């Protein structure tokens, strides 16, 4: 039976599309795999990633990529991992084995990255992830090929901590989504709590498909924290904002992580988000940036381009945009488009991207530095820089 079916498929499908020749070095296209969340709970991110990647690829391909003395084009191979770690692994394997990609961008979140790091590392393929969990790039001796664009979770927590210290906030409660991403956020605050830098009075988790956190919010608010920190992506970040507003918790004491950063947060939370804070790259307030430094110029340009092409801006877009830019930079600097060169070259890269400034080194594969991050606040329905 299996043979019969196999034969039919071979005849019907196989004849026309026998596996393509692996991308030889003289090919004019550089295949880059993209493993992102086009569907499932994190699909909001996936959509922004894909738009950003297509935008950047278009801009890069307009002039081509200088590889040694040749000019090549980027070919993106975008695959959906359904926000599912196991599926992400299957996607990554397929990109490596089938499409023979030079590098992979993805997964778009921590859970879908954690599942593939071992495989990608073993197959020696450079990977740039949009997941924020520190475990993605650590321990560094087992993550030689793995890089990421978002800042490390503790770095983001640190930005919030500084604000808390300025405002005299001592007791906080953390609401986090129950997956690898939320767990990393929670752990960062638990570590700060242990170090005596903050008093974590309560932490509450919710499932990544839940749509109502009234109970978690009620419990957290009952502990009278000076601030509530939320580690969630849209649409859940928006629901958390709404539930906090319903519980009459003051919105100027609510802080979100970079993960919340998208137009959908404001859309989902509606007026409830007004006055709430978020740590994100300055790019989210792109229209307010005065472009004096190269870093600020890159941020502003991306904000303008993306907003022009797609109507509104997404906080996730720059993370993916930079992932691609970083790989292209590495290819140009290294002068070759093979996997080893890209990896070696990435590790030495300093780059001003749309999301912020990257300073990779053999001991640091972990995303934008603290200087790129800012505290933003929702004012009249848009993200505004504080101070």
């Amino acid at each position, binding site marked *: 039976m299996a043979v019969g079916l196999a034969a039919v498929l071979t005849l019907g499908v196989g004849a026309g599309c026998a596996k393509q020749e692996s991308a030889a070095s003289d090919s004019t296209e550089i295949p880059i795999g993209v493993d992102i969340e086009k569907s499932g709970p994190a699909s*909001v991110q996936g*959509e922004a990633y894909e738009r950003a990647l297509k935008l950047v690829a278009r801009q890069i391909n307009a002039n081509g990529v200088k590889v040694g003395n040749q000019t090549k084009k980027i070919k993106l191979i975008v695959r959906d991992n359904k926000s599912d770690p196991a599926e992400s692994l299957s996607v990554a394997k397929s990109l490596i084995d089938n499409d023979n990609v030079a590098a992979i961008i993805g997964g778009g979140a921590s859970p879908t990255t954690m599942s593939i790091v071992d495989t990608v590392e073993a197959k020696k393929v450079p990977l740039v992830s949009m997941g924020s969990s520190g475990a993605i790039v650590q321990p560094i001796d087992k993550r030689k090929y793995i890089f990421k664009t978002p800042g490390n979770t503790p770095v983001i927590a640190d930005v919030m901590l500084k604000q808390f210290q300025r405002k005299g906030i001592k007791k906080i409660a953390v609401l986090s989504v129950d997956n690898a991403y939320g767990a990393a956020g929670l752990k960062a605050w638990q570590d700060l709590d242990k170090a005596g830098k903050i008093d974590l009075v309560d932490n*509450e988790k*919710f499932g990544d498909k839940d749509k*109502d956190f*009234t109970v978690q919010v009620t*419990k957290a608010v*009952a502990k009278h924290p000076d601030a509530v920190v939320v580690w969630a992506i849209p649409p859940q970040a928006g629901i958390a904002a709404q539930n906090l507003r319903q*519980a009459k918790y003051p919105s100027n004491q609510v802080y979100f992580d970079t993960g919340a950063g998208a137009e*959908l947060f404001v859309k989902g939370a509606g007026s409830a988000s007004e006055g709430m804070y978020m740590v994100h790259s300055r790019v989210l307030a792109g229209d307010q940036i005065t472009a004096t430094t190269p870093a600020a110029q890159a941020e502003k340009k991306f904000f303008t381009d993306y907003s022009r092409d797609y109507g509104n801006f997404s906080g996730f877009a720059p993370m993916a945009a930079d992932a691609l830019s970083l790989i292209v930079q590495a290819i140009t600097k290294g002068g070759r488009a093979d996997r080893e060169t890209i990896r070696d070259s990435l590790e030495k890269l300093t780059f001003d991207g749309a999301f912020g400034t990257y300073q990779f080194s053999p001991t640091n594969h972990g995303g934008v530095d603290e200087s790129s991050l800012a505290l933003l606040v929702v004012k009249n329905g848009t993200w505004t820089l504080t101070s």
Partner: protein
Amino acid sequence: MTSLAQFVVTGFTTGATYALVGLGIALIAQVTGVISFAQGEFVMLGGLTFALLEEKGLAAPLAALVAIVLACAVGVVLERLVLPRARAGRTDQTIMLTIGASIVIEGVALVVVGTEPHFARPFTKGSALSVGGVHITPQYVWVVAITAVVLVAMWLLLTRTRVGWAMRATAMDAEAAQLSGISPSRMSLIVFVVAAALGAIGGIVLAPLQSPDAGIGIALGLKGFAAAVIGGLGRPAGAVVGGLALGIVERVAAGYLPGDFSGYSDAIAFALLLLVLLVRPTGLLSALRVERV
């Protein structure tokens, strides 16, 4: 105490939707013998359609009407095209057919609408009322009020109309009903439509609280199922009580789990379901019925 009251209020609101889903499942099970795993998809269809149309600027009552009609139409397709002669079929086969239908409904919704959630405005504006420290948003009131109206209407339908009697008669003894000139096929169609409408209404009232997306059906269907089984699949009232109880237990338990364990709250509904299945598979309320007869 304030917290407890808040948990109960919240649980009651979600429980109302579980109750509507569970009621649909119980009615279908009784009248047609079909165990439908597709019931949650009607909540999705109702909620998502409503939110989508409302976002597009359609007046809420009109959006709700369209959503209900759409869900009912899908109910008809399910009953007529996917499950014809379901009564005669084997249970395992019909269960799998409803699973297949549920997957297809979700898939089509994904193609048409995409994966993003959609946001419906609360039925009326206004901020949360505080009653002794318990926060009650106007939408909570709407959920409870509409659910109550629907349940009363269902009760009247089942006890005061000939169609209602015919449905109950078919549930009690399908052959005898047939001998009285009642068409089981008609009753099956009617009950699927009624169940679809119940689910859609549950989805609509919940939409402003829990922004619906194409993927919510499975989880809500399972919760509704748990509600129906906990209450006892044999009686509609059981499903309603089971749904409300499930919603409240779920939230209260989540509320009293310490923070480190609050992740376990997801499992509460299913742990309760498993317990009922292991201890009293005919449902908690069935005990009352046996003792009364």
